[in-house]
């Protein structure tokens, strides 16, 4: 692998890139201990505030901080304009795709995506066939994972259109940076991210059922304090100024959803749910779900309540469907995709499988239904035994896997033990959709692999985060 593109110094031939010039000279002049001192301050503050996430299967410390790196990641205006157009195009297409899949299914008839890939997909919800959610919005909230390999080389690594998380870190990281480095903000024109909350509220209000009137009652539905993203759920409810409810707080009567309050039952119109489809309603999906609301789907089908995101959106972010995204975008928007996909082998196709098996030691192999960096093989970093194990699994169930070349993820300057080092990063911007349009918040969550050379940025696997600055000049 050749040396990666660096966000600050590019390919290394032309010195510091323009967007990083002010930061680079500031870093040069900063007293040696300053960054570490600020870093400790940030950690202390996050711990005091309880900005934590839970790691499953980790009994010793059920609550951890996501490591926060104080060196911001910077995106210039032009780069952002490109990303913004590409992201909004992509999410618009995803919404149109879902509308079509659960409606006339024209894209299946036209052969854009193989019908059996959709109709036998565990994320496809036959219950939703013919359903039309309020405002015809399916994916209200999307988080699209991008990676960069060169000056113009942005790729979409993954679409997250079920219950994407991380937005609280985007907002909290900015708060933290403004507190720690006010002088840096004076030297940069950084576009604010706090419009996200207003925009989210608008999307949720605008997609309320008609009978809710002008002031719909919105709630955030969480599986509870033991969920890994619980902090984010409470953070969002707080910022939105709405109740944070658990399944047990809601009940359905006469196809209407109510919450139990100290003043008796109160009608609920819009549910921003952070519970997977499978657990939403034990009467429709998994009967053993204890975090859902019995009867919720009946109310949903009766058009009495909005679920954000809609049920069944998972069929659009499946790693196998991902490979068809360029065709999906072309079919629904009539345009070529502005953001490229990472070239991907569909192991379900025999030719591709053969190639993948031959090159396992250099590829990244992912489970179609996996997430969070689990169930994945990074060929160049894997042991012989791991590769052999994956070879067996792959041969047994090729349909469950896709493979991609190991990308030279870009690096960004990151603090490690008081020194600035290069660490690989990705970027998850957030896209909100209402009945009229999709909007992208300028910025996103930059995740950073803290171990030297590591490409795994997931927080569940020890990755950290950075504030992401989109410049307005």
């Amino acid at each position, binding site marked *: 692998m050749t040396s990666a593109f660096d966000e600050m110094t590019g390919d290394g031939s032309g010195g510091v890139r323009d967007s990083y010039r002010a930061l680079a000279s500031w870093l040069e002049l900063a007293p040696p201990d300053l960054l570490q001192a600020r870093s400790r301050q940030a950690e202390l503050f996050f*711990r*005091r*505030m*309880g900005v934590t996430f839970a790691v499953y299967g980790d009994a010793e410390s059920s609550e951890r901080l996501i490591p926060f790196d104080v060196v911001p990641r910077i995106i210039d205006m032009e780069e952002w304009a490109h990303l913004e157009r590409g992201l909004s195009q992509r999410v618009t297409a995803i919404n149109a795709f879902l509308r079509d899949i659960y409606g006339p299914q024209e894209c299946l008839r036209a052969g854009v995506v193989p019908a059996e890939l959709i109709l036998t997909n565990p994320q496809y919800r036959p219950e939703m066939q013919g359903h039309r959610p309020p405002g015809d919005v399916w994916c209200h909230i999307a988080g699209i994972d991008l990676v960069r390999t060169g000056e113009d080389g942005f790729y979409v690594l993954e679409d997250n259109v079920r219950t994407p998380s991380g937005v609280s870190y985007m907002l909290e990281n900015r708060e933290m940076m403004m507190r720690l480095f006010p002088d840096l903000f004076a030297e940069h024109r950084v576009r604010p991210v706090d419009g996200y909350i207003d925009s989210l509220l608008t999307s949720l209000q605008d997609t309320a059922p008609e009978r809710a009137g002008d002031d719909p009652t919105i709630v955030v539905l969480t599986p*509870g*304090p033991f969920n890994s993203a*619980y902090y984010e759920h*409470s*953070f969002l*409810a*707080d910022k939105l100024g709405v*109740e*944070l*409810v*658990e399944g*047990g*707080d809601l009940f359905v009567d006469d196809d209407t959803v109510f*919450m*139990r*309050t*100290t*003043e008796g039952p109160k009608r609920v119109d819009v549910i921003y749910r952070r519970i997977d489809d499978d657990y939403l309603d034990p009467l429709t999906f998994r009967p053993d779900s204890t975090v859902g609301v019995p009867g919720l789907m009946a109310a949903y089908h009766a058009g009495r309540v909005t679920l954000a995101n809609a049920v069944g959106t998972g069929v659009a972010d499946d790693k196998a469907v991902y490979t068809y995204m360029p065709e999906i975008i072309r079919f629904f928007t009539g345009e070529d995709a502005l953001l490229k996909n990472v070239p991907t082998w569909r192991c379900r196709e025999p030719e591709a499988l053969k190639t993948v098996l031959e090159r396992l030691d250099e590829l990244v192999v992912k489970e179609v239904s996996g997430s969070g960096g689990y169930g994945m093989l990074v060929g160049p970093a894997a042991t012989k035994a791991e590769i052999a194990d994956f070879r067996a699994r792959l041969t047994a169930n090729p349909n469950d896997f896709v493979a991609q070349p190991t990308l030279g993820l870009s690096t960004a300057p990151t603090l490690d033990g008081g020194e600035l080092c290069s660490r690989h990063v990705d970027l998850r911007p957030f896209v909100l959709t209402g009945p009229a349009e999709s909007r992208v918040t300028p910025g996103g969550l930059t995740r950073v692999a803290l171990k030297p050379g590591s490409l795994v940025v997931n927080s569940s696997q020890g990755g950290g985060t950075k504030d992401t600055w989109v410049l307005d000049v």
Partner: protein
Amino acid sequence: MLSRTAANLYWTGRYMERADFLARILEAAIRLAALPAKDDPAVTAWASAVASSGVKAAFDSTGRTPSEKSVREFLAFGADNSTSIKACITRARANARSVRTALTIELWEAINGAWNGLNEIGEPTRRADFINFLDFVKSTSLAVEGATSRTMLRNDAYWFLRLGMAIERADNTARLLDVKYHLLLPPGERVGGQLDYFQWTTLLREVSALTAYRWVYRESVRPWLVADLMVLNRQMPRSLASCQGMIVSYLERLATDYGRRGPAQRLASARLARFEEARIEDIFQSGLHEYIQAFLSENHALGAAIHDQYLI
């Protein structure tokens, strides 16, 4: 407000109050155990600490016998004690965490700080370290109370927090009085003797009321006056009458905010009215122990009424 939110707030109030109470009980036990007496005062002191915490049955069922080590461990940290100091703070924090949005940042930081501190301090075994730990617990309840009173809006979230605290405090004061009156004096010690005297002053000290007693009564410590201070005196913030007054006023605020009175309000006001007429002589006449037992069961009934009316 969500009923679950109200319940979480109410129980956050109760658990924080209880943690404070347990710290005071343990502090008093350490003091009492150091007294010279005919029998082994230490055993009595630690046994009574268990009894006044209301966990005697739970303690006995673990097969422990009362000693400084066993009682300190059980009341402060016991993994098998669902209402130890550690369990109370952990639960208060878990409750608070699940209603983060109903709390101010200051209050959340105070509660979360108590929990962080608990984990940092660990489980000290040396007596001096243990006393520091108890000081820490008492300071966190002051921080929580201060943050509550200085930063929370006076809305239902506040009233439920306060209500939980007042119900728990009434319960704790009653248990404290009862145990001192009945259990503490070892056989062979004279009522009114030196040990008896010291025990009553320790009781007052436990609730930070020794100086208050002197201001109010201006005489040496006497059991019926201590009882008067702890049961009927409305100037004393921990007295049963004060707690009852607080309970009534919080419930009335809730009724006003919600525009509806219910069984909890009626029960609480009726009981307060009885306090206004009560005299300590009459209470002693018919037995302080019986009076306190009746109070505890009424307090329990009131808790149940609050639960049925608001928390489910």
